């Protein structure tokens, strides 16, 4: 580690930092999440924080947004050291945050969520708020429906709304924790351009991402964390002189140490499509499926997926993917149509029975429904097998078997947790995702539905997870992958269906020009 971590050493813009971290340390039971980190954040710069899952990025920004207090060290705002004692304090200092996991109140409309910080004695002018919201959204190239109830929106839509809200509150220092993870590449690019515009106006932005291309494209300055320490930084000059490719290489080296190159290669090498499976009897068959929903009703879904086949479902978030996958899993009633698994209709079966038939659903709402945050990792790993042997016998918990299972999964899936008894909610976002994957991929499954399977994972873990999905298919399972990331679908799928406004508007074989055809389907419907 070099001592050049003081940005003042590089020929610096004359500006003084808006916010400085001075040897900040944050400890949690069993782990040092941040280890004496010093970073300056300058106005007019997009400062990218990089690091593998659990490196300490979210923890670092949670101290800037007033959610956590440093164990040691201090934070200076505009050159004056001061504690950021609460989120309100952070807001009043102009620090706005969009967190990795949604902070909106699910039962309220977006308008009311925006109004939450407002004066309680005034009747909110909902129309004005809605109008301002739409304008702000328009300026960053996203669409929001201010009157929508938050819980009816997909996670991606909620995240967009949060960005809009933070901007509406007039932040001069904007923290985006994995804000692009849920966006389509196009929207991510728009957000990137927006960040550029914001910093051009003199704002400071902290941008956390796992996508290195975004980091290099939009970042002015990059800091890399590893195991809670700041292991390196690239200033504006270095970034420019290195150029995107060399910079990416250097970043990977910093992030993962020696095994980084390998990870990057795995991801890239797998870019080609898998060999097409020859048609067999469909294992999972969806016929004329209709699902009711207030905002995005789903209609006319026809899909046949054979054993060993991976079908990708592409589309902008909020076009019925959630409704479709929940209906398949049994969490939502099917209005019309049929679902066959192994030739047996399952559309009237409850969730548990479908699981017993071999249907698995990896939800993308990992905190809302995927895990019980207050419960230990060991129990969350068995959430869908409660009462089953060997973990429970005659209904009695078998602590040994449960712990053994947990230790094995934690090791196999590289879930970084201080202990198997640690509450799952305390894990880093990526590690919670690994927990879900571990739970759903073990045991005997026939068909698996993955909703955004690699969202929030770092390069190494993405590679590992995609390998596991491929292995699942190779093992004779029928696999559906819903993703907003076209690259992911092209890497994994045999066929790709495009979903728009609750319908499947086209299905393409994943061959050479799949990307173009998908693009046509997407824009054709949009027009």
């Amino acid at each position, binding site marked *: 580690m070099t001592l050049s971590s*003081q940005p003042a050493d590089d020929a610096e813009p004359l500006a003084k930092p808006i916010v*400085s971290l*001075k*040897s900040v340390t944050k*400890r949690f039971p069993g782990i040092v999440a941040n280890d*004496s980190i*010093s970073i300056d954040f300058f106005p007019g710069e997009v400062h990218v924080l990089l690091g593998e899952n659990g490196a300490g990025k979210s923890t670092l920004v949670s101290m800037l947004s007033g959610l956590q*207090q*440093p*164990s040691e060290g201090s934070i200076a705002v505009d050159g004056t050291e001061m504690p950021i004692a609460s989120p309100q304090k952070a807001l009043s200092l102009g620090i706005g945050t969009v967190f990795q996991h949604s902070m909106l109140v699910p039962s309220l409309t977006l308008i009311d969520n925006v109004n939450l910080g407002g004066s309680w004695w005034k009747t909110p002018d909902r129309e004005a708020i809605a109008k301002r919201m739409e304008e702000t959204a328009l300026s960053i190239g996203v669409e929001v429906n201010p009157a929508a109830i938050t819980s009816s929106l997909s996670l991606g839509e909620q995240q967009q709304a949060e960005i809009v809200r933070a901007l509406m509150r007039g932040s001069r220092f904007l923290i985006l924790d994995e804000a692009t993870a849920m966006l389509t590449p196009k929207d991510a690019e728009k957000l990137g351009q927006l960040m550029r515009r914001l910093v051009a106006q003199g704002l400071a932005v902290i941008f956390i991402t796992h996508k290195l291309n975004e980091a290099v494209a939009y970042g002015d300055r990059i800091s890399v964390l590893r195991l809670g320490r700041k292991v390196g930084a690239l200033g504006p000059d270095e970034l420019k002189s290195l150029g995107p490719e060399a910079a990416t290489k250097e970043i990977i080296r910093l992030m993962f140490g020696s095994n980084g190159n390998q990870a990057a290669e795995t991801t890239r090498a797998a870019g080609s499509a898998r060999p097409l499976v020859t048609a067999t009897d469909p294992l999972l068959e969806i016929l004329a499926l209709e699902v009711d929903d207030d905002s995005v009703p789903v209609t006319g879904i026809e899909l046949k997926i054979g054993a060993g086949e991976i079908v990708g479902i592409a589309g902008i978030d909020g076009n019925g993917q959630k409704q479709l996958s929940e209906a398949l*899993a*049994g*969490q939502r009633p099917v209005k019309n149509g049929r679902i066959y698994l192994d030739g047996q209709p399952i559309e009237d079966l*409850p*969730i*548990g*029975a*479908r*699981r017993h038939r071999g249907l698995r*659903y990896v*939800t993308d*709402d990992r905190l*809302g*429904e*995927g*895990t*019980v*945050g*207050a*419960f230990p990792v060991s*129990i969350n790993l068995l*959430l*869908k097998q*409660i*009462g089953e042997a060997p973990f*429970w016998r005659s*209904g*009695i*918990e078998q602590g040994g078997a449960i712990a053994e299972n947990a230790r094995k999964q934690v090791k196999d899936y590289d879930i970084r947790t201080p202990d198997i008894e640690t509450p799952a909610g305390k894990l880093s976002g990526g590690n919670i995702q690994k927990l879900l994957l571990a739970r759903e991929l073990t045991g005997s499954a026939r068909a698996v539905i993955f909703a955004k399977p690699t969202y929030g994972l770092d390069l190494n873990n993405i590679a590992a997870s995609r390998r596991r999905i491929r292995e699942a298919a190779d093992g004779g399972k029928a696999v559906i992958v819903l993703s907003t990331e076209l690259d992911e679908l092209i890497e994994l799928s045999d066929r790709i269906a495009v979903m728009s406004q609750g319908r499947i508007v086209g299905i393409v074989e994943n061959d050479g020009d799949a990307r173009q055809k998908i693009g046509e389907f997407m824009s054709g419907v949009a027009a």
Partner: protein
Amino acid sequence: MSVEVQDPSADGQAAAKNNGLASRRLLTDRLQLIGLSIGPLVAAILVASLILIAMGVNPVDYYTYIVNRGLLSPSGIEATLTRMGPLLLIAAGLIVAFRAGIWNLGGDAQFLLGASVVAALAPVLTGYMPVWLVLIVTLVIGAIIGALWSLVPALLRARQGVNEIITTMMMSFLGISFSNVLVKIFFLDPATNVPQTRTLPVEDRLPRLFDTTISSGVLIGLVAILIVHYVMAKTAFGLKLKIVGANAKAAVHAGLSVSALTIGVFAISAGFSGLSGAVAVLGQYGNVRADWNPAYTLTIVPLVFLARFNGFATIAYVFLFSVLSIGSESAARRLGVPNYFTLVTMAILLILLGITEMLDQKRRESRRT
């Protein structure tokens, strides 16, 4: 900006120092823990004493009297333990419900209806079957009656998602009146002028423990609490209930049958309240008088919360409450302090425990920084 010294030997020294600090910290932690549990009790009694002084009563006399009567005198401790039986059963039911995130606040009616029906049936049944069988049958009937009275709120919550706080409270008002109607009209003992049910002879009641007047109802209560504690901590069923309580969406996602579990929780919780009513009649009162309503449920609710749904802590709190309430019933007669003063002491204790908890949390938070 401070310059960081990266010296490994300094790290080692720091670690050693940390070790020493850690053990000292452990000790102070222990002391603080004791202080945290005893402190509020002492403070509560002090505050209540001030109120007593304002009322013109000598607090030392009052509390000595209570401890003597509720704890130290043989008849007092016997009464205290006997009272614990029904209270523990109500607590057991509340623990199950709260763990599952369900607010069954209709316990009073479930208790009273169980009590009235059992009081009416038991003296009749003794003519047809042996006493032990009567006791078993009526205990079961009490539980069933309690459970039945929760059926409407249970179905509304499970099927329609109707908030059970409101429905259980409404069913409670209805049930209390209904129980009165039953006692005054249908279950009336023709042999007395007082409106009440027939009285179960002492020899037909729940057996007493050894040579004392302690009713074996307290054993039923203790067993119930311990079973609930075990089921919640160690079984798949308990875990399912806790998941429904902690994150209902996750429960649905995991394929648990949330509506069946909800109805089950209502039945168990209300069943315990009904059983409590049966135990109160069969072990203690022998009959139900019209307009009788000890309203135990809402008193037990905060105790169960303070115990954090832990069975053993619940037993301790229920014991304390029994001592205070039995003692103060005597004190009411002797010193002229109204019976309700127990509730004042308990309320002050609850508030102080709440405040200590808040301070403790603040302290832990600030220590982390």
